[in-house]
């Protein structure tokens, strides 16, 4: 907003509040995601004649695909905050607050939320940092790339994807990237454009 590098208290509050919005909404995503995947998929597979054990694990494959497909939703806070505030650190701060809020409300991931928040926030921040915060639009697209790579590499180790078939992992990455492109990229851009049309941002 005003002079670029220096953070005034109003900027901190705004970045954190944007995080709070998404934290509140993430919790909604997280819950409905869990409920959907954990109840629907095993039930469907169990009813179609599979054993309970194989139904449950089938549900987790579905879960991994769903995780990949919804990743973008969980990375929307950072880019929009960076587009609005145009300050170093705004994407990171906003994404981190969003995940802290999600943990505080009580998601099934506990401390993982915060670690994810930091990893995703850092990934997105990197894209904007590459342009030195001078070209927000370019920064957005770069952040989609850096955000996808950083978060997926982290996920690869955390979830031990090296135990799985490589082709399967590559498909997951593709879905992962598309999700981030659609939600954190396109959706955030649309939101930003509406804000601009409403004369709320410059």
């Amino acid at each position, binding site marked *: 907003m005003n002079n670029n590098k220096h953070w005034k208290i109003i900027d901190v509050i705004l970045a954190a*509040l944007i995080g709070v919005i998404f934290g509140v909404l993430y919790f909604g995503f997280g819950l409905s995601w869990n409920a959907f995947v954990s109840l629907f998929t095993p039930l469907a597979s169990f009813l179609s004649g599979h054993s309970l054990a194989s139904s449950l694990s089938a549900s987790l494959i579905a879960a991994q695909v769903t995780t990949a497909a919804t990743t973008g939703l969980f990375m929307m806070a950072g880019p929009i905050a960076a587009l609005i505030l145009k300050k170093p650190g705004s994407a990171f701060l906003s994404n981190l607050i969003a995940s802290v809020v999600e943990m505080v409300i009580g998601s099934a991931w*506990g401390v993982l939320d915060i670690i994810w928040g930091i990893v995703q926030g850092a990934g997105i921040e990197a894209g904007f940092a590459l342009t030195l915060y001078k070209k927000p639009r370019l920064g957005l697209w770069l952040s989609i790339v850096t955000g996808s790579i950083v978060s997926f590499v982290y996920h690869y180790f955390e979830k031990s994807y090296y*135990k799985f078939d490589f082709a399967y992992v590559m498909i997951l990455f593709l879905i992962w990237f598309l999700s981030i492109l659609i939600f954190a990229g396109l959706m955030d851009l649309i939101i930003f454009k509406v804000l601009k049309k409403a004369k709320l941002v410059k």
Partner: protein
Amino acid sequence: MKPALKFILVFFIGLELAFIRSLWLNIFTIIGAMIYLLFKRVSIKKFIWIGLIGFVPFVGSWFMYFNLSIDHSAPFAWIMALRVYAYMFLGGVVVYSQTTTQLMRSFEQDLHMNPTFVYGILGALNFLPKMNRQIKIIRASGKMRGVRLTIFSPQLYVKAIYNSFVWSNNLSQAMYAHGFLEDAKRTHYQQKPLTCKEILEFLFMIILSIIASLIK
């Protein structure tokens, strides 16, 4: 232990859990966190809540890692399944054993974080219930005008962000009206300086967690 140190400790163990596959680290973390929460007199209801929401990911993780991993290793499946609860109880330590205000003030006093960030973030976090209500109001007003707003409607976000603009402006003015100024010195109510003993405790716990993670 000082809330900020506790937060860093929990975060550190969380990172270890993410990268090191150790059954004992998982078990020690769960037991340790449970004892700590009991010691802090956290209500039994919260234990049950953690137990319930973690159950599905717990069972699911076991079967997935057992079936999907190339070597079908049961110990590996147990590690990944127990990890779900390790993360949740660690989360419980941060969320249930202190207030957000205590945590943020500890960041300010013990780790010398910039007060602008401490109080900006704290002020925004205090808006959590209001944000929740505001999002309900936005959706209700959409419904009254015949428009269904979902998480895929840009308008939902636009309106929530509009409210953030208004509130950040209001809240920052209120901060100034409380005598707050960026970069100004402040005194601290009931400050207890960080003691050597607390730092040692912290280091001890870190070392303990590393040892646990190395047990095969």
